[in-house]
């Protein structure tokens, strides 16, 4: 060991290009070298971090991306189609930036938050009124959470309508669905932590939705032996009511388990984008003649493109990769701009609008109306007819149905084109009108005439019928029938998928709006909040 060290030192001293001690007798030369090293250390340090020159040539620009840990998830060159605003609307980047904001503000909030039923609400008051910038950070956390859910939904709609879920990107669509569910899980678990009236009652309702499969087991009469609903609620709450056990469980899920899972799946999601050949683009985006190679700088010493032997056409010789530009700085400008706008909007919202905090949780008096966050209000409307179908059955059908879309619709279509052209736009428009008529019609019907128990003939109808025949069940059945009709009419499964997705999206939007604006105390219909009775 000592020998090798000695040898290496000798090697170093004689290595070419190194300043060699001028004199062997004194230490002056070595001292001079030391001072020289000290002077040049900042530059030497910088060069050890960034091991290439200024990004002034294509080669250096490639290296800027390729040798940077944070950027190497990006390709060194990007297709011009991929960085057009209309391709993605920046929604994926926005979602990711919101997640980063949430992690950052979340950790700051954790400094003061205490997950105990005796102290949680007080620590919320502290954060709002005493902690420096506490209220602001909490507001940003709240609005970023809402924004992330909205961006995930819009990003999903973008990927769907541009047919970006098609082969070879089917699995990444499924990963996206997992991230969608994780995002909702993060929001739901975060909702309990303030321990105010809204939190307590919204989570009480959520936990009882988890218990609602009991409606089925009760109807068959097997609850005593096989109580999956009760087990789900006990697993979620660690008790029969929302209390300390539930709070600590939700806290662990919210700050540890779900963020970790989300990070892992975000990693898979990004990695798959690269492995699946970048963002989806139509074939004609490549059709134009590629520019001849113009870069005067020498080609990279290392070929970054040839990572494996692939089945495809041979690469064009002596041409720049077709219609691509270097990621640095072209795509980085866009990513940077989207990030800055997102952060700016969140910081501004946080400064202007306070996140709500009601009075402390009181298990004896329910909040009336006890409304879930906006993205769950559509489900809450369905739950008000029957808990199992509205809260478990239909969400499960929708999420599984969406995840299966790429496997049921395998038509080859030009990806990266909104709605796949004129026919798709028409199908989407007509489907939107159909869904709006169905959902608004049913809402009008139930508000005016009520549901089974309000009618003489069906007042004593068996519970199992009420459980399954939810207005939501009728929506799903009608939407499915409509989608099949579109498949038959157009002879295209893609058009059927467009019809179905549009129906779900419009149904979600209308139900969310309706429950947000038109549902008041006792879940009664009101035209506006001004008409709510005083209590």
């Amino acid at each position: 060991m000592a020998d090798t060290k000695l040898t290496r030192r000798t090697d170093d001293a004689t290595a070419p290009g190194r300043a060699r001690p001028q004199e062997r007798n004194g230490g002056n030369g070595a001292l001079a070298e030391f001072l020289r090293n000290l002077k040049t250390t900042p530059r030497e340090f910088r060069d050890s971090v960034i091991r290439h020159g200024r990004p002034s040539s294509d080669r250096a620009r490639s290296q800027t991306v390729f040798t940077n840990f944070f950027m190497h998830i990006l390709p060194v060159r990007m297709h011009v189609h991929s960085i057009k605003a209309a391709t993605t609307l920046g929604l994926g980047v926005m979602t990711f930036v919101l997640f980063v904001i949430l992690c950052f503000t979340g950790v700051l909030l954790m400094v003061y938050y205490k997950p105990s039923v005796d102290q949680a609400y007080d620590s919320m008051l502290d954060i709002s009124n005493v902690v420096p910038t506490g209220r602001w950070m909490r507001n940003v956390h709240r609005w970023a959470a809402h924004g992330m859910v909205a961006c995930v939904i819009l990003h999903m709609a973008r990927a769907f309508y541009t047919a970006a879920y098609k082969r070879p990107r089917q699995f990444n669509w499924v990963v996206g669905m997992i991230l969608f569910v994780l995002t909702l899980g993060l929001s739901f678990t975060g909702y309990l932590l303030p321990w105010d009236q809204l939190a307590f009652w919204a989570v009480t309702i959520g936990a009882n939705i988890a218990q609602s499969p009991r409606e089925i087991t009760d109807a068959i009469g097997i609850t005593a032996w096989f109580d999956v609903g009760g087990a789900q609620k006990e697993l979620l709450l660690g008790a029969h009511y929302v209390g300390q056990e539930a709070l600590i469980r939700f806290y662990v899920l919210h700050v540890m388990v779900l963020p970790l899972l989300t990070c892992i799946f975000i990693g898979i999601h990004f990695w798959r984008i690269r492995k699946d050949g970048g963002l989806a683009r139509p074939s004609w985006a490549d059709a134009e003649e590629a520019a001849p190679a113009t870069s005067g700088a020498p080609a990279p010493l290392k070929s970054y493109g040839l990572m494996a032997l692939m089945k495809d056409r041979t690469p064009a010789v002596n041409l720049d990769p077709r219609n691509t530009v270097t990621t640095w700085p072209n795509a980085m400008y866009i990513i940077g701009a989207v990030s800055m706008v997102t952060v700016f909007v969140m910081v501004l919202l946080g400064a202007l609008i306070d996140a709500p905090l009601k009075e402390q949780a009181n298990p004896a008096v329910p909040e009336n109306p006890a409304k879930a966050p906006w993205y769950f209000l559509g489900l809450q409307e369905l739950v008000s007819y029957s808990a199992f179908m509205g809260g478990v059955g239909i969400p499960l059908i929708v999420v599984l149905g969406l995840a299966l879309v790429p496997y049921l619709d395998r038509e080859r279509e030009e990806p990266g084109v909104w709605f796949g052209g004129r026919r798709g736009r028409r199908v989407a428009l007509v489907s939107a009108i159909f869904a709006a008529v169905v959902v608004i019609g049913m809402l009008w019907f139930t508000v005016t005439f009520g549901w089974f128990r309000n009618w003489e003939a069906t007042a004593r109808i068996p519970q199992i019928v009420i459980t399954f025949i939810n207005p939501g069940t009728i929506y799903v059945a009608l939407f499915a029938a409509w989608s099949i009709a579109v498949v038959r009419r157009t002879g295209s499964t893609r058009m059927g998928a467009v019809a179905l997705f549009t129906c779900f999206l419009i149904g979600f939007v209308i139900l969310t709006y309706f429950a947000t604006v038109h549902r008041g105390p006792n879940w009664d219909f009101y035209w506006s909040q001004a008409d709510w009775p005083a209590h």
Partner: protein
Amino acid sequence: MPQDPSTSERFKPPETRRDFLGIAAAWSAICAFAMALIGALRLPMPSVFPESDSRVKLGPPSSYPPGSSTYLPAHRLWIFRDERGFGFHALSAVCTHLGCVAGRDESGGFFCPCHGSRFDEDGNVLGGPAPRGLIWVELGLSPEGELVADTLREVPAGTVFVV
């Protein structure tokens, strides 16, 4: 690739056995990990509940006048005593739909503020999304003669506790 049947017959079995052992080993490992995971995930399923002593003392029976109905907000319980003064029964005010606390209206029935479920004064469903009637809770007497309710024990609707 076409092969001499005798050679393939002779050399294939050892290969298949090796494959079989490999696959069996891989699946054994997967099963072992899966079972270990299931075993570890048994932890969050509570075997003792924080409210495991769900019996609550409700005071002496004589504190409830005949024909009265009394609400105990701390336990979310309604205590009824019949006109003749013999029979007691207790109804849980927790709505069977999604767990909100039902209030009582002028007619004596119950009304849930969350999704509008309605029940009559015996807890039977009259309207709304509730899948079943309000829960009749088990009543008993403590050794000191106090009325005791077990909030997690249900008795069939119509059961009356006679003191």
